[in-house]
């Protein structure tokens, strides 16, 4: 994967330059984005991480052409975005499936709305659904599917027309942790198959590091770019990568940025439960949260095990 991606380097697929987006609210103007510039290389998996309200969803809307910037320029494939883009696939946090259509027909909505011949796409839609583990569920209606399955259908709908660009705005935000893990793996698999350019918006540091070639870290209100981090880890990545030192280094890098901005605030004093290690035990809870009935862990137990 790496050599191929490296080969494509320098080919800017998405260009965002000096973008400002201001929203008028009853309380006055709110600057959602302020002077944001970055590129997405062709075939690259780029994540944007930031707290709620940093304008990362706005960024997705601007790139999709569903919203106009107040200032600055957005270009996709070398053309300025001045209308809704159609050569892309979008996945939102909410799967937004049509309740009266089966999983298969929801995927084929993309084809129908484009006025393409549905028969030609039926087979590839079935294959796509099977590739995300939905074989045998093609005829089910959305209310018969679990949250994770619905989101898989939404992802298939975003891919059926084989778009060069995939925009995902918190696609796993409404899913439980286990489903998220599986979906992260599935997305990696899907994106490895084609030479898709992917813009992945999330507030999960772990997901961003696991999936990305590059990560843009945003500051809260107004949204600015705080830093861009290259993730150099071989692909395909297994879930166990997340416990490795390289992974930890990347997540710490992002977390430190959030802490410097006050997005995250750690507990102030190191926990007395972890006197050996230099870091607090993950089980140590902030004051007031622990139940008096819980027996205290042996000193250094967790810390030592982790170290």
């Amino acid at each position, binding site marked *: 994967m790496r050599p191929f991606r490296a080969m494509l380097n320098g080919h800017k697929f998405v260009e965002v330059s000096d973008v400002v987006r201001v929203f008028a609210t009853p309380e006055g103007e709110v600057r959602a984005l302020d002077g944001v510039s970055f590129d997405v290389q062709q075939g690259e998996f780029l994540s944007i991480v930031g707290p709620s309200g940093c304008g990362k969803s706005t960024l997705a809307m601007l790139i999709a052409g569903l919203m106009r910037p107040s200032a600055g320029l957005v270009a996709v494939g070398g053309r300025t975005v001045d209308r809704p883009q159609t050569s892309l696939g979008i996945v939102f946090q909410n799967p937004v499936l049509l309740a009266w259509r089966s999983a298969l027909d929801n995927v084929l909505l993309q084809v129908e*709305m484009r006025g393409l011949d549905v028969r030609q796409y039926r087979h590839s839609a079935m294959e796509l659904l099977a590739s995300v583990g939905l074989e045998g569920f093609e005829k089910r209606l959305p209310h018969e599917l679990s949250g994770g399955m619905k989101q898989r259908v939404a992802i298939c709908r975003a891919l059926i027309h084989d778009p060069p660009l995939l925009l995902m705005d918190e696609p796993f935000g409404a899913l439980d942790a286990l489903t998220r893990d599986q979906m992260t793996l599935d997305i990696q698999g899907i994106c490895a198959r084609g030479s898709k350019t992917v813009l992945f918006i999330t507030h999960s540091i772990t997901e961003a590091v696991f999936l990305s070639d590059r990560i843009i870290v945003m500051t809260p209100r107004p949204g600015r770019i705080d830093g861009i981090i290259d993730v150099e880890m071989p692909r395909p990545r297994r879930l166990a990568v997340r416990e490795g030192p390289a992974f930890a280094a990347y997540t710490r890098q992002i977390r430190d940025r959030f802490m410097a901005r006050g997005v995250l605030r750690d507990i102030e004093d190191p926990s007395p439960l972890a006197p050996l290690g230099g870091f607090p035990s993950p089980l140590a809870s902030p004051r007031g949260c622990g139940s008096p009935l819980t027996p205290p862990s042996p000193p250094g137990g967790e810390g030592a095990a982790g170290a």
Partner: protein
Amino acid sequence: MRWREWSPPAITILVTLVAWEAWVVGFRVREYLLPAPSGILAVLAAEWRYLALHTGVTVYEILWGFFLSIVVGIPLAIVIVYSPVLERAIYPLLVAAQSVPKIAIGPLLIVWAGLGIFPKVLVAFLIAFFPVVIDTVAGLRSVEPEMLHLARSMGASEWRVFLKIRLPNALPNIFAGLKVAVTLAVVGAIVGEFIQADRGLGYALLQASAMLNTKLAFASILILAGIGTVLFVIVDWIERLLIPWHASQRVETAAGTL
């Protein structure tokens, strides 16, 4: 397990009828005040030709009123949803018109529309169409914004969005409106006939009351209730046929509350 669904109302009705009959017989209530159910049924059987004639007229008025409320109400709702200017122009008038008691303009309708069936159809339509408009507007507007974003990213024309997303999405609301409308159309037709008529169940009802033929009046009311119920059930049945995905979910929630 079907009997669990229909047995409670059936038992309630049966018990009511028996108690009614017993009351009338036991206390020798005069017939012109309150006839016994058996007496009403007897009149129903004896006068069925007379009643069928008037029922036909009233059903005809109801169906026309209901039909007009659909063919005027739904397009009007579409116009309101798609044109903010027309919405501002029409909506306040619509609400104002709704707050005028239809029976109050009944005499005017007769002046304008004559003595035939048409003014009754008009009253039925005027009473029935408001919920159709309101519910259709709500339904057409209830599409999730993300879905509309997706549709635009698919390069879909507004016509396709309407046909494949907005309209099917609005069907549950539209049918909610239609169910209210169909029962209101029954009310409208009777109101129209009360104002002035020489035919129809409303006329039969007035005539029977005037002659203290309470049995016949009750028979007319019974038929009216029957018409309302049957029409409602038909609309409900069409709804299940057209939007099975919605009906199935409704049944699930109903079963969940049992």
